[in-house]
């Protein structure tokens, strides 16, 4: 018998486990390390950041207590306000886009594709595992106009749609769209795989019974399929939301936040304030604002998920 086997037998022996778990002190002792790490890694920095947010300047240089004025000044700082607006606009496009397309593709895979299921799932998943910077480079090449036409402009040229040829990353409105398209494309695979997993778990009898009762198409989806995968959909929304509210690397790699401040997110604004403008205090306040928004939205999504369907 292997060592592991002996050990398993020993702890499954009942008397040992019962005795240990019966002792509250023992439980406390076992939970303690994880608790210390959790508190140390999550709560201490949050409290620390909050304390920093009440100061102006940078620790070590001109670090002065200013009360809540960072939180008040935030609303008259054009760049921060623009970043908040931009970030929410981005969330409104990208979160439904990522989860919505993920749902569509997974439904297609589940109901329409009969052959090469594993292959198609693998192909759809590939963008998710590509490094963001590589994806951004690829898209930047596709959107390119000078010195050479990128894929999109070349296609427009080929189709004779010369008036639509433009520097997509050089104009505020198109660069925002370009970023949204890229980030939806990258994440579709991830949500497809998760939702597909939920679809596979729906009991076959249920679908069969519904079909016999005459449900099909949209009705089958809204009455049977969607309620069954609802919890997974909510998880996906939370994932997507938390991913989009901390938008940083894809925008940095694709547009550097530009042109102007058209694609500068809240986290990028925070970074600029902390590490370029030496305003740690103000940047901490922005960080706390991001945290508050995260908590608020997660709370709302959770509330909605507990409601009866």
């Amino acid at each position, binding site marked *: 018998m292997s060592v592991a086997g002996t050990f398993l037998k020993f702890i499954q022996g009942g008397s040992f486990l019962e005795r240990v778990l019966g002792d509250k002190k023992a439980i406390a002792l076992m939970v303690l390390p994880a608790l210390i790490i959790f508190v140390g890694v999550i709560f201490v920095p949050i409290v620390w950041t909050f304390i920093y947010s009440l100061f102006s300047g*940078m*620790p*070590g*240089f001109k670090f002065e207590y200013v009360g809540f004025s960072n939180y008040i000044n935030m609303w008259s700082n*054009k*760049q921060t306000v623009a970043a908040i607006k931009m970030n929410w606009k981005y969330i409104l496009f990208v979160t439904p886009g990522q989860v919505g397309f993920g749902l569509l593709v997974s439904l297609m895979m589940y109901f329409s594709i009969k052959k090469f299921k594993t292959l198609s799932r693998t192909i759809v998943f590939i963008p998710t595992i590509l490094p963001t910077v590589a994806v951004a480079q690829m898209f930047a090449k596709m*959107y*390119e*106009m*000078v*010195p050479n036409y990128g894929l999109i402009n070349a296609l427009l040229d080929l189709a004779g749609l010369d008036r639509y040829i*433009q*520097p997509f*990353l*050089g*104009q*505020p409105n198109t660069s925002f769209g370009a970023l949204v398209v890229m980030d939806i494309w990258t994440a579709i695979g991830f949500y497809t795989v998760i939702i597909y997993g939920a679809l596979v778990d729906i009991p076959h009898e249920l679908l069969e019974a519904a079909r016999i009762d005459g449900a099909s198409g949209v009705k089958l989806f809204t009455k049977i399929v969607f309620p069954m995968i609802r919890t997974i959909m909510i998880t996906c929304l939370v994932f997507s939301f938390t991913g989009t509210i901390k938008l940083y690397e894809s925008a940095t790699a694709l547009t*550097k*936040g*530009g*042109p*102007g*401040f058209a694609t*500068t997110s809240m986290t990028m604004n925070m970074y*600029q304030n902390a*590490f*370029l*403008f*030496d305003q740690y205090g103000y940047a901490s306040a922005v960080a706390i604002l991001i945290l508050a928004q995260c908590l608020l939205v997660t709370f709302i999504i959770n509330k909605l998920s507990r409601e009866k369907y």
Partner: protein
Amino acid sequence: MKKKLLILGVVLVLLVSMLAGCAGNQGAKTPSASTGSNTGSSGDKFQSRTIKFLSIWPEDDKNSNGWIVSELSRQYGETVDGFKLEYEYVAIDQLDQKVKILMSSDDLPEVCTYESGVRLKQVIDAGLILNVEETFTELGIRDCLDEGAVSLLKRLVDGKGLYCVPLGLNMEGFWYNKALFEKAGIQKAPETWDEFLEVCEKLKAAGITPIVQGGSDNWPMTRVLNAYLVRSVGPNAVQDAVTGKKKFTDPEYVAAAQMFQDMAKKGYFAEGMNTIDPGTATSMLMNGQAAMNYDGSWKVSNLNSDDNTAGPEGIGFFNVPVVNDSSTILDYSMNCGNILMFSKKKYDDKVADWMKYVFPKLGDFAMQETGAFKGFSISKMPEDTTYYTQLVAEHLAKAQGAFLWFEAKMDSETSTIAQQSISLLYTGEITAEDYMRLLEETAAKSR
């Protein structure tokens, strides 16, 4: 009872072994510390000295400033025993943060790369670095520094003195493709702004893109705005506005932003220029896809390379054209690149000895190896200099006055706003007034 005793025993053994471990560490540390850091004091015994160099250039990047310093230090190491240069590389975008942290713990290395201007001024004010003027005079090596570079460096810190050594002496202006000028029927490089606009018009009429700038990095675009601003308001235009003597919203400042936008609207700039990176812009100039490019003399390394399809004399240079008599054609936009500063706390006679070896040699060594000016005096020019290196040398010799780049006197927030918003001025998203108002509002915060 027995079990409790056993547990107690195990705990005790663990504790004792941990303590023993700590003690062992201390025991090991003490002697090495005493041999390592005992420098400067006199003694017959052999003493080693490690000089730490914080650099933004990878050490193996031949021809970079970091390589030059480390190569000269290696040569110095061959002449003395026990000398070692500890080379620490930090990415350029993390340099500022790293230096700030080192400053706050008063632990700047012996030699440290940094940037001149507002940032260096903070370090000077904190009293952490050597006065290079005094130190070099004391060591008798003051004359190894180029006077032009020294006066520029002093100006960058508002006359506080010389607290750093240069690692470059660059001038900026318009590089142009001679073949394209000829094709458009342009006889000579423009000297006034009106002539310059005429040249742009002629090029455009001949179906040639007049100007390309690496706009995705933003600064190449603010440089063009600054060119007109300096020539119409004077070399101190930005400084006056930053200190509050004048305002960015004054009509002459807005006029400069307007000129930039007008040039964009007239199609003098390459289309989609704010998506082109500086490297591509240089290639476009050399390939004949655009006729002019405002850039610094650091471009010489590209022009000297085999990638230069325009050939060994195919690209010319002219200084920023003049607008009125507020500055002359012999005033050049100059800068000293990144600089080196030296910790005051860690300076001792070993560092002095190293300085005496390295810096008097740096100018000639860099010219010989890389063909670049570093802001050090050069005793003799190498014989096989290229046309482009000579071109820069000629213009540097002609220079009578210097002006600085657009963001040189701005704090980091104003400078970021200036750079990020120039793209919107280029696309026409904001007006010239909007642009200057943004700068004024941001600059006013730190006045």
